């Protein structure tokens, strides 16, 4: 399919569907704004599903469209350009589904993929724990099998985004008592709506709560809700983290570009655009975004057959999270004293969210410090400390 035509098709669909009752969703949702219209955004997921826009990269036998990377990227770009809201189904579509397609049983695929593709079932991610922030190997949530084979869980996960809006959670837990590190972990699929699970919101610095603590107190899931073999959870988790760095992160740059446009608007409107120091920093922000963009495009380079480390992939998380954090600071400096007050203006409100919420960017999914360790060890062969 021709990319230009495909882009037009996406744009046309968005123009005719992100209207009416969905119009208020434009540019809403996403990290820092997840509390905006969650119910309506689930309906929007179903609207997208009926338009055929979920599972673009999945294989056809699993109900996907098997589109090449370039078109997946084009979709994300056009989606964001049109103001498409933050995706409620993101974790299911881009983490659970690829994991099940790669490593799940045929039964698991039949059971779970349709609910994800059709926007009926929503997923949360159970990785981090209070004692194991950036250190997955320190997981202490336990799981074991009852006599009937059903799995039980005991422990606590934190930083589970949108758990209170989700139906299922995938959990990495320790199945071999006494095991340490990467050994003895299992990867389970667990329904959230049950007596053994309590979800407590974590109030973040903005005062809102889009993360949760999830407490498992003898929570239960069926015997066949394990991905991979018992004890192989680390392998599954690592595979899943690989999918996380996939093509959908490129759509992120369109969000960033939108935020930068808002910043330019505010600067023009309030006169900050005349401040030479601000001008230099705005130019740098634009330049940094091009760096992220070309870095992302380089990730799409074909290197079939090569086993080399992809430096551009290795640096990406660190690069974007710090860029985004700096953008937030720049935005507040552009807004000036008025930034003290929670704003009703769309542009200012969004930029304030960026400033405060981007504080988490350099922490979750591997802190800056962990990222630099990984870059130096995998990218440059520096010895492990």
């Amino acid at each position, binding site marked *: 399919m021709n990319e230009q035509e495909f882009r037009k098709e996406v744009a046309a669909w968005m123009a005719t569907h992100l209207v009416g009752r969905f119009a208020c969703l434009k540019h809403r949702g996403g990290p820092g704004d997840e509390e905006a219209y969650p119910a309506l955004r689930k309906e929007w997921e179903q609207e997208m599903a009926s338009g055929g826009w979920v599972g673009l990269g999945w294989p056809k036998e699993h109900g996907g469209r098997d589109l090449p990377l370039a078109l997946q990227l084009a979709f994300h770009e056009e989606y964001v350009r049109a103001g498409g809201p933050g995706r409620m189904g993101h974790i299911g579509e881009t983490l659970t589904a690829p994991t099940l397609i790669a490593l799940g049983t045929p039964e698991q695929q039949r059971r779970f993929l349709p609910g994800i593709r059709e926007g009926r079932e929503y997923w949360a991610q159970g990785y981090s724990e209070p004692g194991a*922030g950036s250190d997955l190997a320190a997981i202490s949530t336990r799981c074991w099998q009852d006599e009937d084979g059903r799995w039980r869980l005991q422990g606590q996960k934190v*930083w589970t985004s949108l758990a209170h809006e989700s139906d299922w959670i995938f959990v990495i837990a320790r199945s071999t008592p006494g095991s340490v590190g990467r050994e003895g972990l299992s990867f389970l699929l667990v329904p959230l709506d049950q007596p053994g699970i309590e979800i407590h919101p974590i109030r973040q*610095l903005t005062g809102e709560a889009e993360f949760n603590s999830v407490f498992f107190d003898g929570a239960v899931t069926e015997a066949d809700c394990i991905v991979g073999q018992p004890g192989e959870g680390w392998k599954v988790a690592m595979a899943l983290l690989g999918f996380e760095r996939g093509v959908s992160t490129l759509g992120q740059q369109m969000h960033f570009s939108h935020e930068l446009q808002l910043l330019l608007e505010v600067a023009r409107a309030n006169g900050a655009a005349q401040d*030479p*120091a601000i001008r230099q920093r705005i130019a740098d922000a634009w330049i940094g975004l091009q760096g992220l963009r070309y870095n992302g495009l380089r990730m799409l380079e074909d290197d079939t057959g090569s086993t080399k480390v992809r430096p551009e992939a290795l640096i990406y998380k660190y690069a974007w999270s710090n860029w985004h954090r700096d953008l937030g600071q720049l935005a507040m400096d552009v807004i*000036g*004293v*008025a930034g003290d007050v*929670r704003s009703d203006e769309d542009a200012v409100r969004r930029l304030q969210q960026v400033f405060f919420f981007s504080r988490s960017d350099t922490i979750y999914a591997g802190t800056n*410090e962990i990222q630099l360790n990984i870059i130096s060890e995998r990218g440059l062969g520096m010895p492990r400390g």
Partner: protein
Amino acid sequence: MNLTLSDEQRALQETAADFLAEQGNARKDVQDDAGLWAHIVELGWAAVQVPEELDGLGLGAVELGLLMEEMGRRLVRTPFFSTVVLAQTALLQAGSAHAQQRCLPALAFGAQAATLILGPGLDADPATLTVHARRDGEGWHLHGEAAQVLDDGQIDVAYVAARLEGDAAIGLFEVQAGATGVERTPLEVWDLTRPQARWCFDEVRVDAEARVDDADKVCAGLVRTRVLAALQLAAEQVGGAAQCLQLAVDYTKERVQFGRPVATFQAVKHRVAEMMVRMETARSTVRGVMARVAAAAESDAAALDDAALFAEVSAARVLATEAYRYCAQEAIQLHGGVGFTWEYDPQLHFKRAQWASQWLGASSAWRETLAAQLLDVA
């Protein structure tokens, strides 16, 4: 110049540190604020810079700065900053002798809490003032709006810089918060320790006595007020930065990751060291400039002219602003996931640091004015 603190100054600092460690109220209920403020007044802190002949303690910038540093550390939420650092300083620098005698004792002994209204962000440039005054017989009518005023709801009075209609001049007016025509709307602010309100003046009538400025010195006096207030704000910023560093050090010593305290990682050690370098440099500068300002105030001969005062304060202010922003950001980062939560203190400092970076002039504006001094003269 000697930066050594006197025994009295050390004692004041220690008292403040101990008292505020106990009573500092960023996490306390808003209902407790009035009690804290009363206690602070009782300790005499609101009287430090008021001259002895007006029943004050007649101390100077150094003592006030030591208090501000400790208050910044504990994120104290009282009308101290607006009453003492803003309103008192404005009266001292721009007020008539008569007004000083009438108003300062009440501010020094807590009979009144006050705020100061200049241009946005406390800009002292007359062109930025948004309140106008029109003469009406012996008195005045005030009209206009101040979008963001430091006002914690306990303020009794505002000192309002207003442009005089039909005249290029400006005046400083005392306006009761409860006066007819004054409408105060609390704002939903990010930094809850520094409450703000919008003040609308709808033909507010004040009498002749309410004009408190000395017309000959009001313009320069308000500029000087702004510079001196910025120096005190810098002290407060240093206190906040010091507390961010303390929080980061304490947390990383306790938090275990990868089987060892986070504080043992060299990268973490270097980050807290970098915080210390910036904070202590700012602290040295703030204290040094305060000593210089205090010395100048005591001796006419060594008095700082406006340009020299501005330059010295710009150094203290920019170093403090950047140190506080840096330390607050790093404190969040070094706390990892919990640094991002409402329940841990780094976010409180992060919001205060942002607030402080914008009021009384952003760093880039201070730098540009300083650059003009350094470069644009022959």
